């Protein structure tokens, strides 16, 4: 098994003042392996979001390194980093964050447009993804005409469609009722198994934790416990 993402003593501190400084992520060294379905768990404020942002190259570490397939993303910036995120990482956010003026299809298509994928191929993949996330026939709806669960499925499709190496999902079920949340998680698990797609997601929901094959426990920014089931 090969590592997709690994961090070495990665730290993210907020504030310059010793006294008031927040160590949101503190000396975290983890390795995520291809095909894993890993969960970062911890109470609110424990650093889950910050760690995911570091893993995805959205934020720069105060110290330490983040390597994705052997490339140190902490050293990248600007258009290079944008392109790297576009081609290697998929994101799913707690509050869906779809583009409101785009239909479901267009939201999924957009990232392929950035990648320069041909129109016919884009269309094929959009149709395919909609079917995989169970939204056939809803492709032309705008986000405000979709339920929360449906919107998050579109977000999953958007993250998957560019064929990233890893999908990072920050509390993807937090805004959903538990039934819908579990259904979404089952969908992610299915995609994980069918496509060997690597997932890292955060949660503080007990019911959801149970479905993960690996639990990385965060507490005050530090890894408490890293258990594989």
């Amino acid at each position, binding site marked *: 098994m090969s590592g997709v993402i690994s961090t070495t003593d990665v730290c993210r501190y907020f504030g310059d003042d010793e006294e008031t400084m927040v160590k949101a992520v503190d000396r975290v060294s983890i390795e995520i392996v291809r095909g894993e379905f890993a969960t970062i768990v911890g109470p609110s404020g424990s650093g889950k979001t910050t760690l995911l942002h570091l893993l995805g190259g*959205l934020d720069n570490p105060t110290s330490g390194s983040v390597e994705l397939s052997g490339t140190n993303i902490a050293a990248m910036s600007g258009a290079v980093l*944008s392109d790297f995120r576009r081609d290697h990482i998929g994101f799913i956010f707690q509050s869906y964050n779809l583009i409101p003026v785009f239909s479901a299809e267009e939201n999924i298509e*957009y*990232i392929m447009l*950035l*990648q320069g994928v041909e129109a016919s191929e884009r269309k094929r993949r959009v149709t395919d993804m909609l079917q995989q996330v169970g939204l056939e026939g809803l492709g032309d709806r705008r986000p405000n005409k979709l339920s929360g669960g449906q919107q998050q499925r579109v977000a999953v499709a958007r993250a998957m469609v560019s064929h990233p190496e890893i999908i990072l999902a920050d509390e993807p079920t937090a805004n959903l009722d538990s039934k819908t949340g579990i259904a979404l998680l089952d969908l992610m698990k299915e995609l994980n198994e069918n496509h060997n797609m690597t997932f890292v997601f955060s949660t503080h929901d007990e019911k959801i934790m149970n479905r993960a094959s690996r639990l990385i426990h965060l507490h005050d920014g530090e890894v408490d416990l890293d258990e594989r089931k």
Partner: protein
Amino acid sequence: MLLLKLAYRNIFRQRRRSLLTALSLAGGYILCVFSFSLSEGSYSNAISFFILDHTGHIQIHLDDYRLRPKIHKTIDDPQGLSELLDANEEIESHTLRVFAPAIAYSEKDNSPAQVIGVALERERSTSTLAAKITAGEYIDNALDAEGYYSAMIGAGIANSLNIGLGDELILISQGADGSIANDIFIVKAIVGNRASPDRTTVFLPLTAAQEFLSMYGSVHEVSILLKDDGEARVQAAVLQDQLPELTVDPWQIVESTFYQSMQADKQGNNFFMGFIVFIVFVGVLNTVLMSVLERTREFGVLKAIGSRPLKIALMITLETGLLASLSLVAGILVSLPLIAWFTFLGIELAEPMDVGGIMMSHLTGELSLFVFGMPLLFIIGFALLISIPAGLRAARISPTEAMRSN
């Protein structure tokens, strides 16, 4: 295509705000076009008025005759010059003139007069002299049975000397050789009315005037009409090179008082335009910045999933450009019939208006690419310029912070 769709939908997202912005853009445009049309129109009317009345596009004299006319400052080979000008492709027509002050007498009265000798056929195709005749007919070069030449006289002279068609007119002046010039002419036409600028002018056939003034085939002025209105300065320079011993001036110099007041007036106009455009753009800037601030989170997401910062900035520029374009299309649709009406029908003025010294009783606009294109470029250019700071702001949005701001 998807980006254009995105821009288009984002514009329609805030319907009311976009509509207000579009209205102010279109309104500013229409105002600019109207004002350009009015100023271009009334000035080009004034210009064509004096160019056709007597000035022409280009004038040729000896030395400083134009500023300090002296009877002996003459062009001595008008025939050679005429051949040169006739062969010039750029020139529509030209005419030859001599000038002299004189005193005009009838049997009982006298009056000061300006004698102008004109090459009759050339003058007819170069100036509007023939059209200004209010009584009688355009004269010819022939002597009558008693050996007198014909004359066309301004209505003012006809009135003060109390003479009319067929009557005798006596002119007394000084010849180029210093002799006293006097001769009798027969009035064959009245030019203009008692308020015309030509009211005290006596027009004679060129040869008659040359004979009368002992000028032996020389002339004072050559006035040239070009085929292309806009070429006066260029062609004047070309002719000046060919005629180093003479002085060649485009109408902008001949009518420099008019030209300068026109330039100053246009500058004032541009300042006014600038002010309007400024007001419009404060509104546009506000709209663009607001729409960026409102969508901080969206831009953060677009960046997070891999849009390059420059692409985000371009999206804002595209949006602004699209809004401006749509507004301008509306502006053109509204102003085109308006300006067309204004150009072809015009507005009758209750009181004549002074346009750089020329009284105009009719106000008409101009329908040209300049009138529509200039404000168009200006507004599009400014709108795009304004979108740059907003775009850079959007491009700099940090995805992490955008995502946390709820």
